[in-house]
C-alpha cells in the first residue's frame, strides 16, 4: 500500500487571482514581508500495489484528472505504508 500526497498549483506563468487576493489581505494586516502566494490543492491518495510502476500510475492520474495541465503543475510524494 502506498500513501500518495499530490500538490496541484497554477503554473508560474499563470496569474492566480485567489493568491493575489489573499496576499493583499496579508499585506493589509501588516505582513509586508509576504511577497507572493500561490493557492493550490492538496490531495491524499491511498493506492494499492499493482504490477504497474506507482510513479507511472500517479503521473497518468494527474495528467488525466487531478490537474489540468493547460494551467496547472503538479508534484507528488509517495510513501510506502507497511501494514502489519
Amino acid at each position, binding site marked *: 500500500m502506498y500513501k500518495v500526497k499530490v500538490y496541484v498549483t*497554477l503554473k508560474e*506563468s*499563470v*496569474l*492566480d*487571482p*485567489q493568491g493575489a*487576493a489573499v496576499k493583499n489581505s496579508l499585506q493589509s494586516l501588516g505582513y509586508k514581508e509576504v511577497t507572493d502566494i500561490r493557492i493550490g490543492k492538496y490531495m491524499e491518495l491511498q493506492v494499492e500495489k499493482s504490477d504497474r510502476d506507482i510513479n507511472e500510475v500517479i503521473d497518468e492520474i494527474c495528467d488525466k*484528472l*487531478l490537474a*489540468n495541465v*493547460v*494551467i496547472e503543475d503538479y508534484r507528488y510524494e509517495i510513501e510506502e505504508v507497511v501494514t502489519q
Partner: protein
Amino acid sequence: MKFAVIVFPGSNCDIDMYHAIKDELGEEVEYVWHDSESLAEFDGILLPGGFSYGDYLRCGAIARFSNVMNEVIKAAEAGKPVLGVCNGLQILLEAGLLPGAMKRNESLSFICKPVKLKVENNQTMFTSEYEEGEIITVPIAHGEGNYYCDEETLEHLKANHQIAFTYYGENPNGSLANIAGITNEKGNVLGMMPHPERCVDDLLGGSDGLKLFQSIVKHWREINVVKA
C-alpha cells in the same frame, strides 16, 4: 433539425436551452442523460450551463469523463454543430475539444448580469445571422469564466479566426484578449460563457441570442436541403 440537450447531474440551464429550441426556434429537441451511449439520431449537440457533478475538483473536470462525452467527441469529429454554454464550455475545454482553460474570475465574485458582446467572426455556422462587429447583449452567470491560454495558442486562435465573441466595453471576468466565445479549428464546435439561450425572447429581457440558434439551423438546412 433535431437537437440534443445533454443533461449532467447538476446541469441547470438545460430547460432554458430546450425552450429556446422548441418554442423559439420551432425545431425538434430532446434531453439526453449523461450516460447515454449514442447521439447518432441528433443533428446538433447542446451542452448547457450549470454545475455538473458539483464542479468538484475543477469546473467540468468530472463531466468530461461521462459516457456521453465519447459521443460528443464523435459528433464533433463528424462535423456536427456542438455548442457549449458556460459549464458546457468548461466541459469542452476539459475534454480538449477547445483549447485553453478557465480560471476564477479576476474579481473572485460570481457575476450574473447582461453584458455587451462583439461578434468578431460572423463566418461561422453559429454566427452567420449576425453582422460582423455587431454589438449584442447577452447575460453571463459564472464564477470561473476567466479564459486563459498560452501566447502561442492565442496567436493561433487569432490567425485562424476562432474568436467568435469578445466582451465589448467592459471585460467582466479578466478573460485573456476579452475572449467570450471560441470555436475549434474546423468551426463546428463553439464554446461561450455568455448564455444565448437566456435571451431568445423579449419577454426574457432580450432576444439577441436567437440569431445564434437561427444560424445553426440555416447552416444545417443549406447542407441537408438536397436530401429533403
